């Protein structure tokens, strides 16, 4: 019941708000002279609102949420890494291979037996690939499996 989460968030948002507002003051005056509403007006208002909001958070934080600990944190990190690697490998490895790996790993980590997990990955990858490339003629990268 310390509200540490909200306080940290408030602090982070305060830094963000000040930086956001400060950057807005640095823009050169637009060509044609200053008007009442320049490019910086709206961002300045937003930054003031966010400063107020973040201070409120720090002063009156809500009770903390239950944060995942230990193994769950690891699982979350693994899923995040899988998603990033999936995005990275999508083009070089092609859709089918990268999807099989990504979907397979994710469902395996979520508790499916490995073989069934990767089978699900492969089947869904092939179905979606065929559907998209031939049915809907949207080109997903084929990667090394390119035939012609």
């Amino acid at each position, binding site marked *: 019941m310390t509200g540490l989460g909200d306080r940290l968030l408030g602090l982070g948002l305060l830094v963000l708000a000040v930086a956001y507002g400060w950057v807005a003051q640095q823009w050169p005056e*637009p060509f044609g002279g200053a008007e009442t509403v320049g490019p910086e007006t709206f961002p300045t208002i937003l930054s003031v609102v966010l400063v107020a909001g973040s201070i409120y958070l720090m002063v009156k934080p809500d009770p903390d949420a239950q944060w995942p600990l230990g193994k769950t944190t690891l699982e979350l990190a693994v*899923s995040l890494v899988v998603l990033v690697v999936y995005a*990275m490998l*999508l083009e070089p490895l092609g859709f089918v291979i990268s999807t099989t790996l990504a979907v397979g790993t*994710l469902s395996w980590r979520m508790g499916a037996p490995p073989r069934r997990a990767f089978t699900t990955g492969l089947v869904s990858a092939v179905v979606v690939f065929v559907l998209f490339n031939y049915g809907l003629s949207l080109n997903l990268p084929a990667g090394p499996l390119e035939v012609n």
Partner: protein
Amino acid sequence: METLGFLMDGFAVALTPYNLTFALFGAFAGTLIGCLPGLGPANGVAILIPLAFALGLPPETAMILLTSVYAGAMYGGRISSILLNIPGDEPAMMTCLDGYPMARNGRAADALAISAIASFSGGLIGTIGLIMLAPMLAKFALSFGPAEYFALFLLAFATLGGITGKSPMKTVIAATLGIMISTVGIDISTGTQRYTFGVLELYEGIDFILAIVGLFAISELFFFVESRMGGGREKMTVGKLTLTFKELVSTIPTQLRGGVLGFISGVLPGAGASLGSFISYTLEKQVLGKKGNFGEGDIRGVVAPEAGNNGASSGALVPMLTLGVPGSGTTAVLLAMLISLNITPGPLMFTQHADIVWGVIAALLIGNVLLLLLNIPLIGFFVRLLSVPPMYLLPIVTMVAFVGIYSISNSAFDLYFMVAFGAVGYFLRKLDIPVVPIILGLLLGPEMEKNLGHALVLSDGDWSGLWASTLAKSFWLVAGLSLVLPYVVGPVLRRRMNAAIKESPASD
């Protein structure tokens, strides 16, 4: 009877075989999305947006597809409420109260059938309400100036948390964050580069579709990983239909009341479908009092909330279509689709894009009929799908989100952005910062800035011009009230909702 003529034109658009196919697909996919726990309507529509976009569907078809998904999801939410006592989406919460006891009494099939019928009549009443109210509101909204619009946007944000919302301040923070993200890119009126840091990909701003899919779909995956709900659920048997015609007739007054109440709470800013079904249920309990056995499987306890939430879902389209100001997460996502189709929502849409507006409305009517037809015979199929464990399903859904985003731009850069939004969304949701205001901020931010600029030009730089007219004043007032009221009324209402849920013996 101008409206009727427009509606006929709308039917002409919606009934072409091409559009009808998409409506059918949408209704089917929507029911599926609705009935799978953890994959709410906003989520489902969000995942389909990039696909609709990448497929290059014509605007009216894309909108028809997404509205059918929306309507379908509202139907689907009840299935898991009744069979598993787990609401498929938030508005279906109240359906658990009597739906699950009915299923335990061996009347699952009846509960499913009657709730499909109630959903149908709720949706129908809501759509009729929409047809009558929307053109009037659109005409009225034509008189709005920039100052009124600016105040209206504020009102939309202020009411978004809803009267039952926990922390209005967090809604404000979320909305501000969303608007801040929308300022990235080249300023439209002056050409100044804002917050681009010289990164080429940021010049055009951050695509809100990325943000939507990331914040909804990807963060949902993280939540599932965290809660390890990966395993499947026990299979449910539905049993035989024993619903009698007499019983059906006896629920008609409940259906009407529920539908109308739901529609009203759908139109009102800040109420939404959850409150719609809650009010319908409580009123029904008050009206029938001791004559019913609510909480123990009363059939009217299933009918009222279902009619209510489907009425509300049509009602929620009224402010979205006429003012361009959505009142709920899902309508916000629909608005995103409209904006990315280059259609400016608001009163002018009724004249400039009459075919789309009325096509969508006609599609809602047709979709309702399709859904009723789909839901009764195919219920067994949907029930079987419920037992597909999320550990297979969610990774596939995530993959579909990747495919959709990738096929819009063919760039991996966008995918990184989406994943980043997903991770940020997870943290924000953990900290109770709602994601819907962020999306709404992203969508409405540019319009808000434009209207602020126009209003100040009209008033010669005098800031008080923003609240000069009576209409603008009242918007500001309501917006202010909606930020204060939750602190006063919110705790009471929330306690009542919780009490209502705890009262029912089956939901422990």
